[in-house]
């Protein structure tokens, strides 16, 4: 027996391929959407992994330093470093700014790290070129995505910084590239203001209802303090000695220092589950709609293709083709369309993914899952056409 589906496809292959490519672009958009979500998760994950920390110590009761503002004094590390199991601490300051460089407006996250010793928690774990920050002032290490070159001078607020090193995949939870500077520089950028501004600011802050919200005690004080003092940081990153139970140390820190401490797992929960929860739902909705649209389009295409063959199907039935043969023909065509669509879609997503401003992570398991879903959708969608084909009366071939 010859394969009717493939013969039909080959006979009108141009049209079929064109349809498959169209469907593929839609599938490509769907895969990219999933990749955007994976990229967001991955951004959060690398933020945690690349920080080199096992614990994050932040202002009590906050989800800091990435998901909520957190401000603690820059000497709290003294109380932490003595705790059993703590190997190394690092003060860290984070702030997101809009940076103008060579006429381009880039959103970057400034990260202040301690540069007295190499490899403090919070520092970038590897450099793709250049060297670590050696001087206490006005040197920077930039993520490659910031678009800066080695040796380039970049203006951040009131000072010029020299890019001495480049690193990769160091981005904030919202995907903005990081620029590392010394903690002192970061504190200045973050907290210091000129005197007039300071006085005005204080008065304004005190009357600002946003800082006097019921249920957020201490917010005004924290805001005032952070506005006037350069002696604050956003978090202390803690590296533990091998074999130490992070939960135990976190418990100790919480108990003795009136601070909040998060383990890696908790931080992951904050960054991956809480911070991007709304975006995840947003993307989930989008994926669901795209799946329905894909199903509708496949159903429509296959249905139209089948209706165009009513006469041939009537003849096939008249000359004795089984329902099974006809159903298989339609199902196989739907599947072929799905396969072409998927291949085109995966290729398209791979091509346009890197052009996206944020990280798009196309995971093999998403591709496999997507392929299975596409085939399922095609099979389900073809059922409409199969039903129509089986309803065709062989008498139609004889006519009136």
């Amino acid at each position, binding site marked *: 027996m*010859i394969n009717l589906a493939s013969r039909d496809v080959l006979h009108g292959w141009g049209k079929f391929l064109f349809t498959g490519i169209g469907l593929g672009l839609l599938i490509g958009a769907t895969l990219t959407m999933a990749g955007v979500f994976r990229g967001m998760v991955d951004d959060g994950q690398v933020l945690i992994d690349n920080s080199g920390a096992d614990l994050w110590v932040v202002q009590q009761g906050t989800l800091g330093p990435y998901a909520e503002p957190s401000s603690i004094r820059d000497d709290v590390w003294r109380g932490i470093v003595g705790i059993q199991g703590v190997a190394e601490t690092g003060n860290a300051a984070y702030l997101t700014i809009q940076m103008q460089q060579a006429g381009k407006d880039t959103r970057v996250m400034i990260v202040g790290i301690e540069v007295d010793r190499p490899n403090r928690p919070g520092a970038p774990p590897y450099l793709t070129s250049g060297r670590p920050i050696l001087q206490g002032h006005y040197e920077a290490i930039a993520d490659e995505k910031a678009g800066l070159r080695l040796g380039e001078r970049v203006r951040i607020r009131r000072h010029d910084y020299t890019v001495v090193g480049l690193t990769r995949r160091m981005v904030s939870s919202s995907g903005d590239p990081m620029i590392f500077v010394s903690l002192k520089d970061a504190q200045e950028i973050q907290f210091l203001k000129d005197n007039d501004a300071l006085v005005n600011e204080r008065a304004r802050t005190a009357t600002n209802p946003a800082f006097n919200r019921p249920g957020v005690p201490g917010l005004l004080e924290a805001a005032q303090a952070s506005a006037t003092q350069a002696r604050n940081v956003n978090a202390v990153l803690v590296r533990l000695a091998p074999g130490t139970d992070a939960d135990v140390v976190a418990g100790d820190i919480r108990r003795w220092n009136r601070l909040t401490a998060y383990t890696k797992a908790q931080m992951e929960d904050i960054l991956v589950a809480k911070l991007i929860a709304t975006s995840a739902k947003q993307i989930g909705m989008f994926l669901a709609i795209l799946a329905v649209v894909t199903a509708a389009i496949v159903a429509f295409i296959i249905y139209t293709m089948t209706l165009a063959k009513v006469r041939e199907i009537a003849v096939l039935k008249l000359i004795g083709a089984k329902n099974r043969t006809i159903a298989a023909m339609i199902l196989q065509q739907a599947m072929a369309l799905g396969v072409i669509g998927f291949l085109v879609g995966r290729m398209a997503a791979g091509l346009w993914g890197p052009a996206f401003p944020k990280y798009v992570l196309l995971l093999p398991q998403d591709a496999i899952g997507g392929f299975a879903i596409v085939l399922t959708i095609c099979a389900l969608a073809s059922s409409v056409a199969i039903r129509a084909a089986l309803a065709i009366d062989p008498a139609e071939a*004889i006519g009136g």
Partner: protein
Amino acid sequence: MDTPAIKLTGLKKRYGTGDAAVDALKGVDMTIWPGEVVGLVGPSGSGKSTLLKCLGAVIEPTAGHMELAGEVIYDGVWKISDLRALRRDRIGFVFQAPYLIPFLDVTDNVALLPMLAGRDNAAARKRALDLLTALDVRHRAGAQVSQLSGGEQQRVAIARSLANHAPVILADEPTAPLDSERALAVVRILNDMAQQYNTAIIVVTHDEKIIPTFKRIYHIRDGKTHEEAGEGRPI
């Protein structure tokens, strides 16, 4: 010549029920012998297509008796459970338009029937090529259907109807779209094939050009048939 290829007695077909009922066939008697080409003529609405559909087992008669090559296939109810297999193996169809499958080449259009009947591809294609040779379209064997002339397409359709050695071929206006020369050529082929393969062929037609060629004609009028000798003019 002792077993008729087709034997109909008192075949009736009523469409619909109640007030809307139409008695399209009101008791058709018909006997056709193997190797015969018989004309079936009648005015529009007389029941020709209805009769062909009953014979082709695509609609069920309402009453009567129907035998195919000696086997009772209808006697008030169908006596055969797999009507598709019946159509595939024992009835050939030729239509006004050739109704070939456009996505198969000429050979596979013919070979499809034996393939549907379970023959392997090589045997089916051999059968197809033999028939294409007999019908003088062997040289178009690898062509696409759309590249064939109308007459060639009709010959391929005839080859297809013969592919499973069916004892009966039903031809519905097979010459309508052809000029008189080609129409007569098709009738000649049908006669040759009937002889060569001992097949009974019923040709439904309005076509004045070919009516004189039949030796026997069934006239159908108002759901009833009566037989008449034709001119049997040589082609």
